[in-house]
């Protein structure tokens, strides 16, 4: 990885800056790491989880504070990790004044929220999960603001949406929480998608996703016809995140989250991500007409509607949610106005809003926590019981209303000043002061209402809990935030002036306007508007008091919330119904049509080039080549006459005569196998033959559990015209497919061989792979990674088969003894000199002894196959299958019980060991600085035995060998064990019924032991 840091003007970074920049990724990634750790804490480790989370947040605050010196006066800390340099993708960590301010918000409020949440969350909540999410969110948010690349920013953007989903749905037993989480994810996810499109458009036009480059290429972007769609897409993304009308409706539903989450994500940080993006792109976009109209209008409407809706809420958090929407609208409106002074006001208000709104949310949480309700109709006169909290809430609400001496006042006055300034002279511009004052009046209204109805008035009568002050630690975060509101409100320039200056310069550049934050500007028009707004808000409250204080009132649907929700629900229902309709229309769950279409598509795709060629170049379709044919040999023809007859027979008999079809398939397989021998593919022949044996045994074992299908009268009657037509249609397709393959094969075979890569393998097998059998060397060396994947597939399939069979419920018809078994038993019972089971024991007695004795022979053969594999036909796979056959033959000869009393195969151990050996062999190459699975080989001279060639590939092949034994045996045994399981079941039934031939305890014990043998 490459580390570098640079300042935007291209000047050489100082060494301090370079070092400082290396902390940026630490800042962003540390919360993720700790979040992972916290997730593994025990469920009730509240203090440990909160302690770790708090410490992480504090480290974040400290790091951010230390980095401040690197971002003053337009300086930028940058650190680039090259990621995919070939396509110009880099991970860029970038910190400037603006992102510094956001980092401080995220870490600072994060630390306070962690402290608050420690006392807010109930003891029975799984708190480590909560803090783990919270930390990951903190990391995502930091990653977002520290991204110097739009794609990277988008990645963290989506992460914040995801974690917001998880945090809203934290109390997932609550339906509102689930719905709210889903809605938030849907809306912000949709926004994220559009944002991606916008980012891609910008990247396409500019040729880079680097934020600095995009800003530097403003003219290029503005000249492009794609600028309008790009802006629209980016803005929809930002609006969805920052709850701007008409995408605001998810935020009130997100209030189902625990209150610390609302304070942190849904007022102070995540909803500011859209604002952050707009600020980030402000230098590029500001001044563009689309930007001006869309952003200003959306902001204005949101500001006003949010304020009105907040007024009529009855849930404390609902009031705060709509108030948040309204204030976000205010900030958006300021950004839309596109003047530098408006941008300053926007940044300042972002900071102020975060402090007073987070403290208000925390206060609402305290009220909820101590009284048991957030319903403003039930709350009243709380000041008596919680004077401290009450005072804090009054100050914070004052800041929200824009009361002098508080931070909200200063930024709101800056806002009003801006609305009065001349921008474009449009109707919107001229109406702006009026609407802004009205919106501000609503701010005052709901702030007054919040305080008056909750803390004053008569004593509340029906509170679930007796209210009292919360523990001091829970109040501390609110105290700190309110303290900041006061300090910023009284000595703005001393407290946040420099910080704001850095952020402003980062957005506006070095020619940013010099501003001086002051409490008192004199009797300016803006101050007058401020006074009007306060007077209007207060009088509106008294005018509406009767209605707002109505304790029986129901939530007003026209306040926007319910209607937006209904539209959203309708859209979702419609979407799902539409998707279902299209699926039903265009898809099918039935296998037959699917397979038919797949084969048809393959045929069409295969035939198309030839047809095209024939049409365009008259007559030159699929032709034979000039390569001389290999002379025909009569035995080969006979083999294939047999093979063709077998295949056809199998096709005809597969429905009603399964055993015959299986045998005939084996016949066709044999023809294929002989063809391999003939055509110089001995490895294939060996493997095919062995696999053929195992497959046949497997299918035979399976047939035991597949009830016979006998052609009934019904079946014959069913062969109506439709069915005949369908069969005919399938046959035609099959003939075309088969004929096409034959023609294609013939056309290829009659053409000379083209170069290909065979020459390389032939030339390098001995030198590079240390083996003479080129096919084996390809498999275990050149293409070892493929083989690695292949044996993994085999292992997975074996385990799946095993797992499926553990809960296997066979068809009803085949449970119990088979017809053959019953006949044998009946024969034994009929004779006095025989006991039940004798016939089964005597069956094929001589062959069984031979099979029994074959075990060492086949074992030797398998070892032989394995050892010669690298130089001659054979190899780990064939050897493994051969060894598995040795085992299964013992099962067949002596029965499962007899074998397992004497031999425990432990197939799972074989599989695991094999996979491990193969993987470790591959990894071994790393220690020599080579890529995975690079082989090494050498020759060893041993006394007596002579020269032995050693290759690491042989070790890999040993892994293949072990895995194949395990996988094959596991599948076969799992299936073979079904008969024992059923037998055991019937035994226990007999015991229950007190049948005559109750088994001896020893026998039953054996059966139980054996039944488990396949399982361990």
């Amino acid at each position: 990885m490459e580390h570098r840091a640079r300042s935007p003007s291209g000047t050489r970074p100082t060494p301090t800056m370079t070092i400082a920049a290396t902390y940026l990724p630490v800042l962003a990634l540390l919360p993720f790491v700790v979040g992972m750790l916290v997730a593994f804490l025990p469920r009730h480790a509240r203090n440990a989880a909160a302690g770790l989370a708090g410490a992480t947040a504090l480290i974040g605050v400290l790091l951010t504070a230390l980095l401040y010196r690197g971002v003053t006066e337009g300086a930028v800390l940058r650190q680039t990790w090259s990621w995919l340099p070939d396509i110009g993708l880099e991970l860029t960590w970038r910190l400037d004044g603006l992102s510094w301010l956001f980092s401080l918000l995220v870490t600072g409020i994060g630390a306070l929220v962690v402290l608050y949440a420690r006392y807010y969350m109930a003891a029975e909540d799984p708190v480590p999960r909560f803090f783990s999410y919270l930390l990951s969110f903190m990391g995502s948010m930091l990653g977002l603001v520290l991204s110097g690349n739009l794609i990277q920013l988008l990645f963290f953007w989506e992460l914040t949406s995801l974690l917001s989903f998880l945090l809203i749905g934290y109390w997932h037993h609550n339906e509102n929480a689930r719905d709210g989480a889903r809605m938030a994810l849907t809306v912000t996810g949709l926004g994220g998608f559009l944002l991606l499109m916008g980012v891609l458009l910008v990247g396409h036009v500019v040729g880079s996703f680097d934020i600095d480059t995009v800003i530097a290429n403003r003219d290029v972007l503005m000249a492009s016809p794609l600028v309008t769609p790009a802006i629209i897409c980016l803005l929809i993304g930002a609006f969805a995140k920052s709850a701007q009308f008409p995408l605001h409706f998810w935020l009130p539903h997100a209030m189902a989250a625990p209150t610390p989450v609302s304070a942190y994500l849904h007022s102070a940080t995540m909803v500011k991500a859209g604002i952050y993006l707009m600020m980030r792109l402000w230098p590029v976009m500001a001044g563009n007409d689309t930007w001006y109209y869309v952003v200003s209008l959306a902001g204005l409407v949101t500001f006003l509607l949010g304020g009105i809706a907040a007024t009529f809420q009855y849930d404390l958090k609902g009031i705060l949610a709509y108030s948040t929407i309204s204030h976000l609208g205010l900030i958006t409106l300021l950004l839309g106005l596109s003047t530098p002074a408006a941008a300053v006001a926007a940044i300042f208000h972002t900071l102020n809003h975060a402090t007073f709104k987070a403290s208000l949310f925390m206060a609402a949480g305290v009220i909820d926590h101590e009284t048991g309700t957030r319903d403003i109709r039930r709350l009243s006169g709380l000041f008596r019981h919680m004077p401290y909290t009450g005072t804090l809430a009054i100050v914070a609400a004052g800041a929200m209303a824009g009361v002098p001496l508080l931070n909200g006042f200063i930024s709101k006055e800056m806002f009003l000043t801006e609305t009065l300034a001349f921008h474009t002279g449009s109707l919107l511009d001229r109406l702006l002061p009026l609407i802004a004052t009205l919106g501000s009046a609503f701010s005052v209204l709901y702030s007054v209402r919040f305080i008056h109805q909750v803390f004053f008035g008569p004593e509340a009568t029906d509170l679930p809990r007796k209210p009292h002050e919360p523990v001091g630690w829970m109040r501390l975060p609110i105290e700190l935030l309110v303290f900041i509101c006061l300090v910023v409100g009284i000595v703005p320039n001393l407290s946040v002036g420099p910080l704001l200056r850095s952020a402003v310069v980062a957005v506006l550049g070095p020619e940013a306007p010099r501003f001086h934050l002051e409490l008192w500007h004199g009797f300016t028009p803006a101050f007058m508007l401020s006074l009007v707004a306060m007077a209007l808000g207060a009088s509106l409250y008294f005018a509406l008091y009767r209605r707002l204080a109505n304790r029986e009132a129901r939530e007003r649907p026209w306040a926007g919330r319910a209607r937006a929700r209904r539209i959203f629900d309708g859209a979702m229902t419609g979407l799902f119904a539409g998707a279902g309709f299209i699926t039903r229309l265009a898809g099918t769950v039935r296998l037959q049509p699917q397979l038919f279409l797949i084969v048809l598509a393959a045929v069409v795709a295969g035939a198309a080039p030839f047809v095209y060629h024939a049409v365009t170049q008259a007559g030159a379709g699929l032709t034979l080549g000039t390569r001389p044919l290999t002379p025909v040999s009569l035995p080969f023809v006979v083999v294939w006459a047999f093979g063709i007859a077998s295949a056809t027979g199998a096709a005809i008999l597969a429905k009603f005569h399964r055993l015959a079809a299986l045998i005939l398939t084996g016949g066709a397989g044999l023809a294929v196998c002989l063809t391999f021998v003939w055509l110089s593919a001995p490895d294939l022949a060996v493997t095919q033959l062995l696999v053929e044996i195992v497959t046949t045994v497997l299918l035979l074992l399976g047939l035991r559990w597949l009830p016979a299908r006998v052609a009934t009268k019904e079946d014959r009657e069913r062969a109506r015209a439709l069915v005949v037509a369908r069969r005919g249609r399938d046959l035609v397709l099959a003939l075309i497919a088969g004929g096409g393959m034959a023609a294609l094969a013939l056309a290829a075979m009659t053409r000379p061989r083209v170069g290909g890569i065979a020459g390389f393998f032939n030339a390098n097998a001995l030198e590079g792979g240390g083996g003479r059998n080129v096919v084996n060397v390809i498999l275990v060396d050149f293409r070892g990674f493929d083989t690695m994947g292949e044996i993994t597939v085999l292992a997975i399939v074996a385990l799946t088969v095993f797992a499926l069979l553990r809960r296997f419920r066979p068809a009803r018809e085949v449970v119990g003894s088979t017809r053959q078994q019953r006949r044998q038993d009946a024969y034994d019972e009929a004779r006095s000199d025989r006991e039940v089971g004798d016939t089964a024991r005597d069956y094929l007695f001589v062959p069984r002894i031979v099979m029994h004795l074959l075990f060492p022979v086949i074992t030797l053969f398998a070892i032989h196959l394995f050892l010669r594999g690298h130089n001659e036909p054979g190899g780990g796979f064939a050897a493994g299958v051969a060894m598995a056959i040795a085992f299964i033959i013992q099962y067949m000869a002596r029965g499962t019980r007899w074998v397992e009393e004497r031999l425990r195969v432990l197939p799972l151990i074989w599989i695991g060991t094999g996979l491990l050996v193969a993987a470790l062999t591959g990894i071994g190459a790393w220690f020599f600085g080579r890529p995975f699975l690079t082989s090494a080989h050498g020759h060893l001279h041993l006394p007596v035995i002579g020269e032995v060639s050693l290759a690491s590939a042989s070790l890999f092949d040993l892994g293949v060998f072990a895995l194949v034994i395990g996988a094959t045996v596991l599948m076969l045994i799992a299936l073979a064990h079904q008969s024992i399981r059923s037998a055991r079941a019937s035994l226990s039934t007999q015991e229950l019924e007190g049948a005559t031939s109750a088994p001896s305890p020893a026998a039953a014990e054996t059966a139980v032991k054996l039944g488990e043998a396949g399982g361990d």
Partner: protein
Amino acid sequence: MEIVVAIGIGVLATTGVYLILRPRTFQVIIGLSLLTYAVNLFILAMGRLVVDGAPLLAEGADPSTFADPVPQSLVLTSIVISFSMTALFLVVLLAARGITGTDHVDGDGMSA
């Protein structure tokens, strides 16, 4: 020889495709086996037919007379994978028979 192999491929593919389009599970499993044979032979045929040219680098062997080892190693992989697939399909087939009470591929008794 080429013609014989081509006909063999054709018949195996035809029977295989016909069977996988049938509604009974056992027909499909047999069809898959036959189709696998056809495809494996087809892949081998792409290396052209070579008699007495096993790709074994014995002393003095001339690699230019060898059969192409690449299709061979592909087919070897294919044999393994199709074995796995057959085994898995067999178990699914048995389980489906137990659960649905029918050996129809879609778990119902309709159609041929």
